[in-house]
Protein backbone atom coordinates (compact mmCIF):
# COMPACT_ATOMS: atom_id res chain seq x y z
CA UNK A 1 0.00 0.00 0.00
CA UNK A 2 2.81 2.38 -0.90
CA UNK A 3 1.19 5.63 -2.02
CA UNK A 4 2.74 6.90 -5.27
CA UNK A 5 3.26 10.58 -6.04
CA UNK A 6 0.48 12.66 -7.50
CA UNK A 7 -2.35 11.31 -5.36
CA UNK A 8 -1.87 13.43 -2.24
CA UNK A 9 -2.26 17.19 -1.99
CA UNK A 10 0.33 19.44 -0.42
CA UNK A 11 -1.39 19.93 2.93
CA UNK A 12 -1.66 16.18 3.42
CA UNK A 13 1.82 15.09 2.38
CA UNK A 14 3.41 18.17 3.92
CA UNK A 15 1.74 17.58 7.29
CA UNK A 16 2.64 13.90 7.26
CA UNK A 17 6.26 14.70 6.35
CA UNK A 18 6.33 16.83 9.49
CA UNK A 19 4.78 14.15 11.68
CA UNK A 20 7.02 11.39 10.29
CA UNK A 21 10.14 13.54 10.50
CA UNK A 22 9.33 14.38 14.11
CA UNK A 23 8.65 10.74 14.93
CA UNK A 24 11.97 9.71 13.37
CA UNK A 25 13.87 12.28 15.43
CA UNK A 26 12.00 11.14 18.54
CA UNK A 27 12.77 7.49 17.78
CA UNK A 28 16.50 8.22 17.40
CA UNK A 29 16.41 10.16 20.68
CA UNK A 30 14.44 7.40 22.36
CA UNK A 31 16.60 4.44 21.30
CA UNK A 32 20.00 6.06 21.76
CA UNK A 33 20.31 5.02 25.40
CA UNK A 34 18.87 1.54 25.10
CA UNK A 35 20.34 0.42 21.79
CA UNK A 36 23.18 -1.84 22.82
CA UNK A 37 25.93 -2.41 20.28
CA UNK A 38 25.04 -6.08 20.11
CA UNK A 39 21.51 -5.20 19.03
CA UNK A 40 22.70 -3.32 15.93
CA UNK A 41 23.23 -6.50 13.80
CA UNK A 42 19.65 -7.55 14.65
CA UNK A 43 18.47 -4.15 13.43
CA UNK A 44 20.19 -4.73 10.09
CA UNK A 45 19.02 -8.33 9.70
CA UNK A 46 15.41 -7.43 10.51
CA UNK A 47 15.42 -4.57 8.00
CA UNK A 48 16.97 -6.74 5.27
CA UNK A 49 14.47 -9.54 5.94
CA UNK A 50 11.51 -7.15 5.78
CA UNK A 51 12.79 -5.64 2.54
CA UNK A 52 13.12 -9.08 0.95
CA UNK A 53 9.74 -10.25 2.25
CA UNK A 54 8.01 -7.10 0.95
CA UNK A 55 9.10 -7.96 -2.60
CA UNK A 56 6.89 -11.02 -2.72
CA UNK A 57 3.40 -9.87 -3.62
CA UNK A 58 0.81 -12.57 -3.17
CA UNK A 59 -2.63 -12.58 -4.82
CA UNK A 60 -5.61 -11.82 -2.60
CA UNK A 61 -8.29 -12.51 -5.18
CA UNK A 62 -10.10 -10.34 -7.74
CA UNK A 63 -6.90 -9.29 -9.51
CA UNK A 64 -5.47 -7.63 -6.43
CA UNK A 65 -2.18 -8.43 -4.72
CA UNK A 66 -0.61 -7.52 -1.43
CA UNK A 67 2.56 -8.14 0.47
CA UNK A 68 3.99 -8.58 3.94
CA UNK A 69 4.47 -5.36 5.94
CA UNK A 70 6.60 -6.35 8.92
CA UNK A 71 6.16 -3.32 11.19
CA UNK A 72 4.83 -5.37 14.13
CA UNK A 73 7.50 -8.02 13.57
CA UNK A 74 10.22 -5.35 13.82
CA UNK A 75 8.65 -3.77 16.92
CA UNK A 76 8.22 -7.06 18.78
CA UNK A 77 11.72 -8.25 17.90
CA UNK A 78 13.54 -4.98 18.65
CA UNK A 79 11.28 -2.63 20.62
CA UNK A 80 8.68 -0.15 19.29
CA UNK A 81 10.99 2.72 18.32
CA UNK A 82 13.77 0.49 17.05
CA UNK A 83 11.12 -1.23 14.93
CA UNK A 84 9.88 2.13 13.71
CA UNK A 85 13.40 3.07 12.58
CA UNK A 86 13.74 -0.26 10.75
CA UNK A 87 10.54 0.50 8.84
CA UNK A 88 11.74 4.04 8.07
CA UNK A 89 14.91 2.53 6.57
CA UNK A 90 12.97 -0.02 4.47
CA UNK A 91 10.45 2.54 3.19
CA UNK A 92 13.13 5.14 2.44
CA UNK A 93 15.27 2.66 0.50
CA UNK A 94 12.20 1.48 -1.44
CA UNK A 95 11.29 5.09 -2.25
CA UNK A 96 14.71 6.48 -3.17
CA UNK A 97 16.27 3.46 -4.88
CA UNK A 98 13.28 1.62 -6.33
CA UNK A 99 10.62 4.35 -6.76
CA UNK A 100 8.27 2.17 -4.72
CA UNK A 101 6.12 4.82 -3.07
CA UNK A 102 6.38 8.43 -4.13
CA UNK A 103 8.98 10.86 -2.87
CA UNK A 104 6.41 13.46 -1.83
CA UNK A 105 4.35 10.64 -0.33
CA UNK A 106 7.25 9.23 1.70
CA UNK A 107 6.13 11.06 4.85
CA UNK A 108 2.61 9.65 4.43
CA UNK A 109 3.94 6.15 3.76
CA UNK A 110 6.14 6.31 6.88
CA UNK A 111 3.16 7.60 8.87
CA UNK A 112 0.92 4.72 7.71
CA UNK A 113 3.29 1.78 7.52
CA UNK A 114 5.90 2.66 10.15
CA UNK A 115 4.13 4.78 12.78
CA UNK A 116 0.54 3.50 12.75
CA UNK A 117 1.44 -0.11 11.93
CA UNK A 118 4.48 0.09 14.23
CA UNK A 119 4.53 1.83 17.64
CA UNK A 120 0.78 2.62 17.70
CA UNK A 121 -0.20 -1.02 17.16
CA UNK A 122 2.69 -2.15 19.34
CA UNK A 123 1.37 -0.21 22.34
CA UNK A 124 -2.09 -1.74 21.88
CA UNK A 125 -0.37 -5.13 21.57
CA UNK A 126 1.55 -4.49 24.81
CA UNK A 127 -1.66 -3.67 26.71
CA UNK A 128 -3.36 -6.78 25.36
CA UNK A 129 -0.34 -8.95 26.15
CA UNK A 130 -0.06 -7.75 29.74
CA UNK A 131 -3.81 -8.14 30.28
CA UNK A 132 -3.70 -11.67 28.90
CA UNK A 133 -0.63 -12.69 30.86
CA UNK A 134 -2.62 -12.59 34.09
CA UNK A 135 -4.45 -15.67 32.90
CA UNK A 136 -2.18 -17.22 30.29
CA UNK A 137 1.53 -17.90 29.90
CA UNK A 138 3.81 -15.14 28.62
CA UNK A 139 4.33 -17.07 25.38
CA UNK A 140 0.62 -17.60 24.70
CA UNK A 141 -0.19 -13.98 25.57
CA UNK A 142 2.54 -12.68 23.30
CA UNK A 143 1.72 -14.85 20.29
CA UNK A 144 -2.05 -14.40 20.53
CA UNK A 145 -1.80 -10.61 20.92
CA UNK A 146 0.73 -10.57 18.09
CA UNK A 147 -1.64 -12.40 15.75
CA UNK A 148 -4.43 -9.92 16.46
CA UNK A 149 -2.40 -6.72 16.33
CA UNK A 150 -0.23 -7.65 13.35
CA UNK A 151 -3.50 -8.25 11.48
CA UNK A 152 -4.81 -4.89 12.74
CA UNK A 153 -1.56 -3.12 11.81
CA UNK A 154 -2.09 -3.82 8.11
CA UNK A 155 -5.78 -2.93 8.27
CA UNK A 156 -5.18 0.37 10.12
CA UNK A 157 -2.31 1.34 7.82
CA UNK A 158 -4.52 0.79 4.76
CA UNK A 159 -7.40 2.68 6.39
CA UNK A 160 -5.05 5.62 7.00
CA UNK A 161 -3.95 5.54 3.35
CA UNK A 162 -7.59 5.51 2.22
CA UNK A 163 -8.34 8.46 4.51
CA UNK A 164 -5.36 10.45 3.19
CA UNK A 165 -6.45 9.88 -0.42
CA UNK A 166 -9.96 11.02 0.48
CA UNK A 167 -8.78 14.17 2.28
CA UNK A 168 -6.48 15.04 -0.62
CA UNK A 169 -9.42 14.60 -3.01
CA UNK A 170 -7.23 14.39 -6.11
CA UNK A 171 -8.68 11.13 -7.36
CA UNK A 172 -12.14 12.53 -6.54
CA UNK A 173 -13.70 9.37 -5.24
CA UNK A 174 -15.97 9.29 -2.19
CA UNK A 175 -14.49 7.88 1.01
CA UNK A 176 -16.48 4.63 0.85
CA UNK A 177 -15.36 3.72 -2.66
CA UNK A 178 -11.71 4.10 -1.65
CA UNK A 179 -12.06 2.71 1.86
CA UNK A 180 -14.06 -0.47 1.14
CA UNK A 181 -11.87 -2.07 -1.54
CA UNK A 182 -8.57 -0.99 0.05
CA UNK A 183 -9.40 -1.98 3.61
CA UNK A 184 -11.29 -5.06 2.42
CA UNK A 185 -8.23 -6.37 0.54
CA UNK A 186 -6.01 -5.58 3.50
CA UNK A 187 -8.24 -7.52 5.87
CA UNK A 188 -7.21 -10.55 3.81
CA UNK A 189 -3.57 -9.47 3.51
CA UNK A 190 -3.58 -9.07 7.29
CA UNK A 191 -4.17 -12.80 7.68
CA UNK A 192 -0.94 -13.46 5.77
CA UNK A 193 0.76 -10.76 7.83
CA UNK A 194 -0.35 -12.36 11.10
CA UNK A 195 0.69 -15.84 9.94
CA UNK A 196 4.19 -14.78 8.84
CA UNK A 197 4.76 -12.61 11.93
CA UNK A 198 3.64 -15.31 14.36
CA UNK A 199 5.68 -18.02 12.60
CA UNK A 200 8.88 -15.95 12.63
CA UNK A 201 8.48 -14.92 16.28
CA UNK A 202 7.61 -18.50 17.31
CA UNK A 203 10.78 -19.81 15.68
CA UNK A 204 12.98 -17.15 17.30
CA UNK A 205 11.28 -17.65 20.69
CA UNK A 206 12.01 -21.35 20.45
CA UNK A 207 15.66 -20.87 19.55
CA UNK A 208 16.68 -17.70 21.39
CA UNK A 209 13.88 -16.07 23.42
CA UNK A 210 16.29 -13.39 24.58
CA UNK A 211 16.35 -12.03 21.02
CA UNK A 212 12.62 -11.20 21.17
CA UNK A 213 12.48 -7.81 22.86
CA UNK A 214 8.79 -8.05 23.79
CA UNK A 215 9.25 -11.43 25.51
CA UNK A 216 9.82 -10.90 29.21
CA UNK A 217 9.32 -14.46 30.42
CA UNK A 218 11.81 -17.15 31.33
CA UNK A 219 13.63 -19.12 28.60
CA UNK A 220 11.14 -21.51 27.03
CA UNK A 221 13.63 -24.32 27.03
CA UNK A 222 16.79 -24.34 29.01
CA UNK A 223 19.89 -23.35 27.13
CA UNK A 224 22.34 -26.24 26.76
CA UNK A 225 24.81 -24.58 29.13
CA UNK A 226 22.27 -24.40 31.91
CA UNK A 227 21.02 -27.90 31.19
CA UNK A 228 24.19 -29.55 32.37
CA UNK A 229 23.38 -29.23 36.05
CA UNK A 230 19.63 -29.18 36.04
CA UNK A 231 18.23 -31.83 33.74
CA UNK A 232 14.88 -32.99 34.95
Amino acid at each position, binding site marked *: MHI*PDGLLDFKTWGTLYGVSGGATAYALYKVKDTLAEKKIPMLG*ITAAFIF*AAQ*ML*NFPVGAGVSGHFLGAMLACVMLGPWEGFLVMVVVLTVQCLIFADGG*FAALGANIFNMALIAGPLCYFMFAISKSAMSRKFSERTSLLTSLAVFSWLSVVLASAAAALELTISNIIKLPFASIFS*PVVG*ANMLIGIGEAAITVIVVTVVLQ*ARPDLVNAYKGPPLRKLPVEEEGSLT
Partner: protein
Amino acid sequence: MKTLFSKKHLALWMLAAAALTVVIALVVASPWASKSPDSLEKVTEKTGVANRSTAAPLKEYQVPGVAGKQASTRVSALLGVFITLAVALAIGALASWLGRRHRGANTLTPATAPADGRGPSDEA
Protein backbone atom coordinates in the same frame (compact mmCIF):
# COMPACT_ATOMS: atom_id res chain seq x y z
CA MET B 1 36.23 -18.60 19.01
CA LYS B 2 35.62 -21.37 21.47
CA THR B 3 32.61 -19.61 22.93
CA LEU B 4 31.42 -18.52 19.50
CA PHE B 5 31.06 -22.13 18.42
CA SER B 6 29.95 -23.53 21.75
CA LYS B 7 26.72 -25.44 22.21
CA LYS B 8 25.26 -22.32 23.74
CA HIS B 9 25.52 -20.51 20.43
CA LEU B 10 24.19 -23.37 18.36
CA ALA B 11 20.67 -21.90 18.42
CA LEU B 12 21.99 -18.55 17.25
CA TRP B 13 23.88 -20.07 14.34
CA MET B 14 20.87 -22.12 13.33
CA LEU B 15 18.76 -19.00 13.48
CA ALA B 16 21.27 -17.06 11.38
CA ALA B 17 21.38 -19.91 8.84
CA ALA B 18 17.58 -20.03 8.72
CA ALA B 19 17.35 -16.26 8.21
CA LEU B 20 19.94 -16.37 5.43
CA THR B 21 18.13 -19.27 3.73
CA VAL B 22 14.81 -17.45 3.84
CA VAL B 23 16.30 -14.24 2.45
CA ILE B 24 18.02 -16.15 -0.39
CA ALA B 25 14.76 -17.98 -1.12
CA LEU B 26 12.89 -14.66 -1.21
CA VAL B 27 15.45 -13.14 -3.59
CA VAL B 28 15.22 -16.18 -5.90
CA ALA B 29 11.41 -16.10 -5.75
CA SER B 30 11.13 -12.32 -6.27
CA PRO B 31 10.37 -12.50 -10.04
CA TRP B 32 7.46 -14.84 -9.33
CA ALA B 33 5.64 -12.32 -7.14
CA SER B 34 2.08 -11.56 -8.18
CA LYS B 35 1.99 -8.91 -10.90
CA SER B 36 -1.54 -7.82 -10.00
CA PRO B 37 -1.89 -4.24 -8.79
CA ASP B 38 -2.13 -3.73 -5.04
CA SER B 39 -5.36 -2.50 -3.50
CA LEU B 40 -4.43 1.19 -3.81
CA GLU B 41 -3.35 0.88 -7.45
CA LYS B 42 -6.54 -1.04 -8.22
CA VAL B 43 -8.68 1.80 -6.88
CA THR B 44 -6.68 4.64 -8.37
CA GLU B 45 -6.04 3.18 -11.84
CA LYS B 46 -9.72 3.53 -12.74
CA THR B 47 -9.78 7.24 -11.92
CA GLY B 48 -7.36 8.14 -14.70
CA VAL B 49 -5.21 10.20 -12.35
CA ALA B 50 -1.65 9.41 -13.39
CA ASN B 51 0.53 7.87 -10.72
CA ARG B 52 3.56 10.06 -11.18
CA SER B 53 6.38 7.79 -10.22
CA THR B 54 9.61 9.31 -9.08
CA ALA B 55 12.92 8.84 -10.84
CA ALA B 56 15.09 6.29 -9.08
CA PRO B 57 18.20 4.28 -9.93
CA LEU B 58 16.50 0.86 -9.81
CA LYS B 59 13.01 1.85 -10.82
CA GLU B 60 10.37 -0.90 -10.83
CA TYR B 61 12.91 -3.28 -9.28
CA GLN B 62 14.87 -3.55 -12.53
CA VAL B 63 18.61 -3.08 -12.81
CA PRO B 64 19.61 -1.28 -16.01
CA GLY B 65 22.05 -3.36 -18.02
CA VAL B 66 21.09 -6.74 -16.59
CA ALA B 67 19.69 -8.90 -19.38
CA GLY B 68 16.45 -10.72 -18.67
CA LYS B 69 13.59 -9.38 -16.62
CA GLN B 70 13.74 -12.15 -14.01
CA ALA B 71 17.49 -11.89 -13.50
CA SER B 72 17.14 -8.13 -13.29
CA THR B 73 14.51 -8.43 -10.56
CA ARG B 74 16.67 -10.88 -8.63
CA VAL B 75 19.73 -8.65 -8.84
CA SER B 76 17.67 -5.66 -7.72
CA ALA B 77 16.29 -7.69 -4.80
CA LEU B 78 19.78 -8.70 -3.77
CA LEU B 79 21.06 -5.12 -4.07
CA GLY B 80 18.06 -3.93 -2.06
CA VAL B 81 18.77 -6.43 0.70
CA PHE B 82 22.36 -5.25 0.99
CA ILE B 83 21.48 -1.55 0.78
CA THR B 84 18.76 -1.97 3.44
CA LEU B 85 21.16 -3.92 5.65
CA ALA B 86 23.86 -1.26 5.30
CA VAL B 87 21.51 1.68 5.94
CA ALA B 88 19.93 -0.02 8.97
CA LEU B 89 23.37 -0.79 10.41
CA ALA B 90 24.36 2.83 9.82
CA ILE B 91 21.22 4.10 11.60
CA GLY B 92 21.96 1.72 14.48
CA ALA B 93 25.53 2.99 14.66
CA LEU B 94 24.25 6.58 14.58
CA ALA B 95 21.81 5.97 17.45
CA SER B 96 24.49 4.19 19.40
CA TRP B 97 26.93 7.08 18.78
CA LEU B 98 24.29 9.60 19.90
CA GLY B 99 23.87 7.56 23.07
CA ARG B 100 27.59 7.47 23.76
CA ARG B 101 27.90 11.20 23.17
CA HIS B 102 24.88 11.79 25.41
CA ARG B 103 26.41 9.81 28.22
CA GLY B 104 29.46 12.02 27.79
CA ALA B 105 32.37 11.08 29.97
CA ASN B 106 31.14 7.56 30.56
CA THR B 107 32.09 6.61 27.03
CA LEU B 108 33.15 3.17 28.09
CA THR B 109 29.90 2.36 29.89
CA PRO B 110 27.99 -0.04 27.68
CA ALA B 111 24.44 0.88 26.77
CA THR B 112 21.89 -0.69 29.04
CA ALA B 113 20.46 -3.40 26.86
CA PRO B 114 16.82 -4.25 27.52
CA ALA B 115 17.82 -7.84 26.92
CA ASP B 116 20.17 -7.74 29.88
CA GLY B 117 19.31 -9.95 32.77
CA ARG B 118 17.02 -12.24 30.91
CA GLY B 119 19.26 -14.21 28.67
CA PRO B 120 22.81 -14.87 27.62
CA SER B 121 24.41 -11.51 26.99
CA ASP B 122 27.34 -12.76 24.95
CA GLU B 123 25.79 -13.34 21.61
CA ALA B 124 27.92 -13.47 18.51
